[in-house]
């Protein structure tokens, strides 16, 4: 199972990669939505964890493109809120097709649980 982690924050990406690798998944990293799409096309992921507010291509746009190209893909959106707050962004992400949303700060164990649940149902 391959997980694509999209976040512009290096440390956040590293953390997510470690957690997911510990949970036994293969992890691909991308620094923004555009790079994420590019990598996904080359190596399709089963699940994408994406931040919502990033330079270049925003998370909401990425979610839409991913769902359009690959309707079965599982998506987890995470957000620290930016100017609007996760309360505004996360519902939008859900409307656009994110399967689960997490508001930063979140518990990595819960995130790992969610990933397991989403991929386990496949």
């Amino acid at each position: 199972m391959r997980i694509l982690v999209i976040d512009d924050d290096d440390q956040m990406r590293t953390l997510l990669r470690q957690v997911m690798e510990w949970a036994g998944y293969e992890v691909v990293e991308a620094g923004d939505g555009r790079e994420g799409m590019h990598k996904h096309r080359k190596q399709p992921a089963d699940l994408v964890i994406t931040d919502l507010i990033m330079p270049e291509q925003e998370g909401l746009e990425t979610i839409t493109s991913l769902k359009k190209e690959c309707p079965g893909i599982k998506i987890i959106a995470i957000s620290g809120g930016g100017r609007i707050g996760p309360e505004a962004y996360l519902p939008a992400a859900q409307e656009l097709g994110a399967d689960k949303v997490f508001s930063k700060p979140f518990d990595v164990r819960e995130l790992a649980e969610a990933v397991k649940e989403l991929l386990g149902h496949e």
Partner: protein
Amino acid sequence: MNEIHALVVDNSPVIRRILSYVLEAEGCSVQIAEDGLEALDRIAQQRPDILFTDLIMPKIDGEKLSYIIRNTPELKDVFLVVLSGVALEDNDATVRIGADVCIAKGPAATMKAHIVAALDRFRTNQRGGTGMIQGLEGLYPREVTSELLISKKHRDVILKRMTEGVVELNHEGRIVMANDAAVHLFAQPEARVLGSHLVHLLPQAAGEQIATWMEQLKGAVGFVPLVFSYDEPILMEERQVTFNLVPVAEEEAFFIIGILQDVSRRKMLEQRQRQLEKELQRIRKLEAMSLMASGISHDFNNLLTIISGNVEMARYVSRDESVGQMLGEAAKALNLTVQLIRQFTTFSDNYLPQKSRVRLCTLIDEVLSQDLSPTGISYRLTCGDDELAITVDPNLIRQVFANLTKNAVEAMGGIGGVEVAIDRVDGSEEAARTGQAVPGGELIRITFSDSGPGIAPAILDQVFDPYFSTKLKGAQKGMGLGLTIVHSIVKKHGGAVWITMPPAGGCTVTLYFPLQEVVVTDPHFLTRKGQGARILVMDDEEMMRLINKKMFEHFGCSVTLATSGEEAVELYRQHLVAGRRFDLALLDLRVCGGMGGLEAARAIVAQDPEAAMVAISGDSGNEVMLQYSDHHFVAALAKPFSIDAVEELVNRFL
């Protein structure tokens, strides 16, 4: 028949003597008075059966005296005979006054005959004057008298119409004249006001001050006025009244003219203005803070996720028990930090209330019973209407009452009680009653009172400030944000809140929430800059429409979406016709298979030359984007745009 008691009122000794002589000869017992005021004192000692009065007299004149008699239940049947020196010039006085007989002053012999005749009419109970004036034969009208009477009439009209109260006091401080405005201020019938001592009609402190001043006047050479100014008015019932008492020398004695002004309304408006300004200041302060809180929480949320994630990972990886324990402690502290940051976000712009219909009584009861049961503090909840429901964010409202309860518990130190009352009120009435910044319309009012020691008045205005706390700092994390959060949540719901110290002790927090969700337009209650503004967004991409909608809604705007130029033009037209013109229209320049933004802008400007439109495009080098003002646009935005760009639009155009 019993002896007839007659009272003769005239400032002319000659007339008094003639009347006494005639009446005593007729078997009456006669009392005399020199003016209306003295007459009132005589009447108070013994009620006369028949009263003879002159019209023009100093102090209380004959007309006022008659008015008092006719309007005092125990006196209204006194037989009233007017002896007028101005009967020819003022010939409708009898009817105006309600005299039983009117006699013109003239030669003594004629007068005597008419006095006896009047007495006969009294004896045979022929009441209600005919309007006829006796004894006019041989008299001629005098021009000077007519002129004086006209001038008096003018003065009376002016006095009657004045909004200021005017009173005249004699040297003893008794009221001998009071215009309508003054009588209204004393809130007593005119008949009772006239003749009263002014000091008896005022609160004790003011009365004593006036009495002392009048005492000083008696021996004084130069008269000094006594002023109760705007800054220290006299409190009469609910009204605040300024007094300007001016002594006027008159032969041997003096009299006093008093000017009274009801300044309650002005004071109330001033107080309200001050409150509004304070509130506005507070909101500005909190706005700046919330901006910072948004930034801090965003950065911290990221950092905290990384810290806590790594701590969790380290705990998982580490096999060393003591390292695990240390990481466990770090995780606990992290958890507290996360909670603190959450508190911050509650009053930051980041937090959009998640509203639902809530029964307030039930919600508050839950909070009180849960939070108070371990403390031993009792509570009483009074609901005007148990079913009363409003649309609020239940979690936020729960937090409001949890914070208030926590403060009350800490203030009372484990002993006492909390009382909460909920009822419906009218916003404008509450604003007028309290002088506070209360929104208009139907409101729910919640008063939350504790029996603690209260708050010192000097710091009352600061209690909503962030990190203002009367408690010792450092003992507990997150202290000093409780009331700030209460204030912020109430404002987010378009309500109002303040704290008062009731005279009976303790502390009362009064909160208001609008019963109906309303579009708030009063700048004092606006929490978001774009509140109520109408925005039209035309974009053929669904995702762009959705994000734009979310962003504008964040600033309180109401957003209408269009998928093509044609639809945008039609929606604009419909809204314009319905009087709900869009405040801003965002038009995408390139639309797949339909009318683009430029064409739509031309069509819209043809309907509404004042339309405010923004060009949006993925291609920022486009000629229209560069020269947008040549194409009816007020701004151009390159896609995708950020929340900051939207905020700038809101600031500039809404």
